């Protein structure tokens, strides 16, 4: 699990900088402590490295512009992921228009795709990469919920703030995605 939840010093340091009116210092702290983990989220959400990089960068640009108005109704990390979610969903839409490769959860293939289980490919396939490909196939709203919950180790109450949805809705999305991911992995010849 991510260690970011147990990293309040970053929050304190950034908030202290904000109290001094030093947005640049606050942003530097946020980039230092959350830059890498947010990048992981953007990459998996967007599925296109160039667009993910842009979404990641714009998240921090918009964070800088919004820091002066940060009201402290959530942690800075939750607030930052709220911005990232919007930027990454926008980028994912662009990526989808480009590739037309996303499918809704219910539309995931139930049988192995012969092209995907070629022996050569299976031999060198990393479980993590295979799982990443299965996540790519989830609908964006479901993918966000799964990534925030497990990749980012964010609680459901915080996810509710980020996604503007009820915790119960998000719990249901994640719970329904789990068998889909399992089948997808099995369809690629991988058993967890």
């Amino acid at each position, binding site marked *: 699990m991510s260690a970011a939840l147990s990293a309040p010093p970053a929050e304190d340091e950034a908030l202290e900088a904000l109290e001094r009116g030093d947005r640049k210092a606050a942003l530097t702290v946020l980039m230092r402590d959350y830059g890498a983990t947010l990048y992981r989220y953007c990459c998996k959400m967007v599925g296109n490295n160039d667009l993910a990089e842009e979404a990641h960068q714009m998240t921090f640009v918009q964070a800088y512009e919004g820091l002066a108005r940060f009201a402290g109704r959530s942690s800075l990390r939750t607030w930052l992921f709220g911005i990232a979610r919007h930027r990454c969903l926008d980028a994912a839409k662009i990526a989808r228009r480009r590739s037309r490769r996303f499918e809704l959860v219910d539309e995931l293939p139930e049988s192995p795709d012969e092209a995907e289980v070629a022996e050569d490919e299976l031999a060198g396939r990393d479980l993590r990469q295979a*799982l990443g490909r299965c996540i790519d196939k989830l609908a964006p709203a479901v993918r966000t919920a799964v990534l925030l919950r497990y990749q980012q180790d964010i609680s459901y109450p915080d996810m509710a703030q980020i996604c503007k949805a009820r915790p119960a809705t998000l719990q249901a999305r994640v719970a329904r995605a789990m068998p889909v991911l399992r089948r997808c992995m099995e369809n690629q010849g991988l058993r967890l």
Partner: protein
Amino acid sequence: MNASMSREERFEQVGLLQIEQGEALGDDFAHPELAATRRTYGALRQALTTVGEEASPPAGWEARVFATIARRKSARRRGGWLRLLIPAGAAAALAALLLVGTPPGPDEGVATLTVRVEAGAGPARRGSEAHPGDRLRLEARTGDAAHAELRVYRSDRELVLRCSTAPPCVRQGQTLRADVPLPALGTYQSLLLLSDSPLPAPAGTLDADAGSALEAGAHVTLGDEVSVQ
């Protein structure tokens, strides 16, 4: 619930939701028959924590964030209407060009970097084009940083100035100044680096050098970009 549903199917429909809700699993789901299924989902949850672990942001990304912030700020100061007339990339470059010499706003913190263009023969000018033979005048507020350095990169790839206390840099108290000739066409990006520990030596490209300075804990301030045409 469908009576013909298998125990595993019920687990997937109900048990997995209970797990997400943080509830204890019902007795039915503790059945030994489901041990392998529970292990599978436990392994899946664990695997999900590592997804994308190999991805890391490109070097120098923090500098690009600050550069974008500076450009957007400049564009707002001089009127967003320019963006309607010209493509976004050109707008950012032109906005930066027009703002040569504009002092940073009060929210910039202690470190500031002011960039002015001095015409080959004449006084310093603001908001005008630079031409070969003009000079760049840099003035930085360094605060109490033990190490302060000015750098200028041409077209992001060529380091044309690096100084701290030796000429052409002059440090007086909390101010660091330098004059730089602009002999060739290209875009000139100035950088102020502040740190309480020695700064890493430059490799010669803006992204890499700004990235390594940030990684070393330095404070990096970008000046407005100047385009010599």
